[in-house]
């Protein structure tokens, strides 16, 4: 039990609404009776599943330890070789995975921080203030769930090329640009190009319906008394947010941070679109360029060993995060319902 759990139990009115860890439990239903045969069968089924899930990654790791000749040998070699560090180095240095790795890290940290911040303050504005726009704003955020990047990809790219274009268009359309130009002689030309920049990689991903829900749900469990006690203690809304809500939402932050880190590290389509300058490339996209087909190898022997080394480099950080933050990860995932 963490420190965050303990006092929450006393503060939270509706225990059902709390962020709970659905996978942590108390008991084993199989232990109602003794079933040795079924137990062995259970283990067999589970082990088979583990092998199906793990074996592909073993093959990736295996290939990453082989040399160019070994990896292309017929039939394939299934035992590790000794080229692991060489291959990793090759991918890291020659393919410039070092720089890309750093970029991925910057983007992931930026997106995670941004999402948590935005989710927290939006939910704060929706839960702790009484205004008519609460539900409309909530729905505006909610509907973005139905507009994944994949379905608005071309126009979103156009917006990234000039993030102020929507405003420019509106100004042109309403005649305000014309008016300003006539009056002052200044031509209104708003432009903010986000292509090939960290801003472009981070800002569009920072909006988060799921994060806002998670925070909203949590804020709704904060008892009225806490708000009123803060009022009586003379703390204003921002102070209440910073000194009461944020410390209380550490569980939320951990859960959100974990799923959002995986989400942003694994971004592929968006960086693929807006980044052409290799200085801003991220590992996931770089991996796509390692595909050893005739375009990249020029008809030569495919260098699978480097490609697999690269795959490992991309895979390891989020997998480590998920394994070590498993508890938070599961909470985040279940409680946002994706």
């Amino acid at each position, binding site marked *: 039990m963490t*420190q965050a759990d*303990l006092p929450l139990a*006393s*503060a939270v009115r509706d225990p059902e609404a709390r962020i709970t860890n659905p996978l942590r439990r108390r008991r084993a239903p199989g232990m109602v009776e003794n079933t040795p045969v079924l137990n062995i069968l259970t283990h067999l089924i589970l082990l088979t599943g583990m092998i199906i899930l793990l074996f592909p990654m073993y093959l990736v790791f295996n290939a990453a330890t082989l040399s160019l000749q070994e990896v292309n040998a017929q039939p394939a070699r299934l035992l590790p070789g000794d080229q692991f560090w060489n291959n990793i180095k090759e991918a890291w240095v020659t393919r410039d995975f070092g720089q890309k790795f750093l970029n991925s890290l910057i983007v992931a940290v930026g997106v995670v921080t941004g999402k948590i911040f935005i989710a927290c303050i939006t939910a704060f504005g929706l839960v702790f203030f009484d205004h008519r726009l609460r539900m409309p704003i909530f729905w505006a955020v909610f509907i973005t769930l139905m507009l994944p990047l994949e379905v608005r990809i071309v126009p979103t790219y156009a917006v990234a090329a000039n993030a102020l274009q929507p405003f420019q268009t509106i100004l042109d359309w309403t005649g305000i640009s014309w008016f300003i130009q006539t009056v002052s002689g200044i031509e209104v030309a708003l432009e903010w190009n986000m292509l090939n920049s960290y801003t472009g990689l981070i800002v569009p991903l920072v909006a988060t319906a799921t994060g806002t829900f998670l925070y909203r749900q949590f804020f709704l469990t904060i008892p009225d008394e806490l708000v*009123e006690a803060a*009022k009586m*203690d003379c*703390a204003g809304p921002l102070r209440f947010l910073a000194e009461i809500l944020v410390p209380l939402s550490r569980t939320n932050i951990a859960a959100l941070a974990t799923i959002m880190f995986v989400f942003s590290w694994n971004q592929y389509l968006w960086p693929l679109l807006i980044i052409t300058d290799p200085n801003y490339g991220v590992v996931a996209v770089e991996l796509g360029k390692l595909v050893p087909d005739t375009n990249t190898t020029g008809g030569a022997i495919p260098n699978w060993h480097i490609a697999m080394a690269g795959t490992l480099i991309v895979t390891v950080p989020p997998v480590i995060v998920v394994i070590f933050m498993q508890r938070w990860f599961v909470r985040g995932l279940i409680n946002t319902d994706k």
Partner: protein
Amino acid sequence: MANIDIRQVRKSYGKDEVIHGVDLTVNIGEFVVILGPSGCGKSTLLRMIAGLEDISGGEISIAGTVVNDLEPRQRGCAMVFQNYGLYPHMTVAENIGYALKVAGMKKPERLEKVRAVAKSVGLEEFMDRKPGQLSGGQRQRVAMARAIIREPKVFLFDEPLSNLDAKLRVQMRHEIRRIHNRIKATSVFVTHDQHEGMTLADRMVIMNKGTIDQVGTPEEVYNRPATVYVAGFIGSPAMNFLSGQISAEQSVILLADDSRIEIASDAARRHAGALVQLGLRPEDMTLCAPGAGHLTGSFDFYEELGSSGLYHLMIEDVPFTVLSSIKPRFQHGDQVGVLADLSKLHVFGAKDGVRIDMDEQVIRQMEPAE
């Protein structure tokens, strides 16, 4: 320290008016308990004093300043909440000192004060615990300390003891009174528990459906309830009521079972023909042989209370209780006589429920039915 003036205060939610023009003055250093059943508007009134609810009409002033439009933090009130409202992530010390921190007090000075206040409520051993690690009584003490440390003009208590078990409730009640006697802060305490009100209050305010029925010392409220509602609400076991009518010609109150109570003729003339409710507390009567007392009823069942026993009778179809420290035994259906202390008879108008004052001498005699 400050006095509170409440003038014609109203509260409505949309079309529903829940408080209908309430007047009340709380004097400096006074401990006032607002008592009433749930939904009577007592918490709303308290929260309007605190600034946690808007005031729909009328005026509240604290220390002579109208506070209607002031934020809670500008009113100088401290509040103890029903669920304590402790910050779950802060230690006891941090909880107690938070208001001072917000006010910008320096840390050493603050810690000094926190320690002193914590000691005064017996919390010094728990300074580094979180609220979740404390018992109900300890949390209650933290909530108290948090209010005390601010040295507020006014203390507000919103049913602070209702989450405690019975024994602890009594203990905390005494403790609150002791603290009040020490610091003499103007206090308003809301509760639905009459015992709490009786023990704590300098003056009690009895609320009923958004209006104040009576304001007075616990003794006044018990001895001279202003309305039939107050009479029924205060006192346990509850007061008995019998219906009757005032007859001016005979100068009596006629009861349903034909017993009659003689009253002074001028009182009878003033209220000629009025339908009334007679109130008699179970403890103001004794049992006697049938026909020997003022009333006669049939025995229903007996309730053992330890030091005394409560006899449930039926007079005509009206349930009636008598408290007796001598404990005679009856069978169901036995006829039992009841002798009333007529100096403690309460008379209320049946229509408006308002007390009809007839001095003790006025009620002369009560004659049982033939």
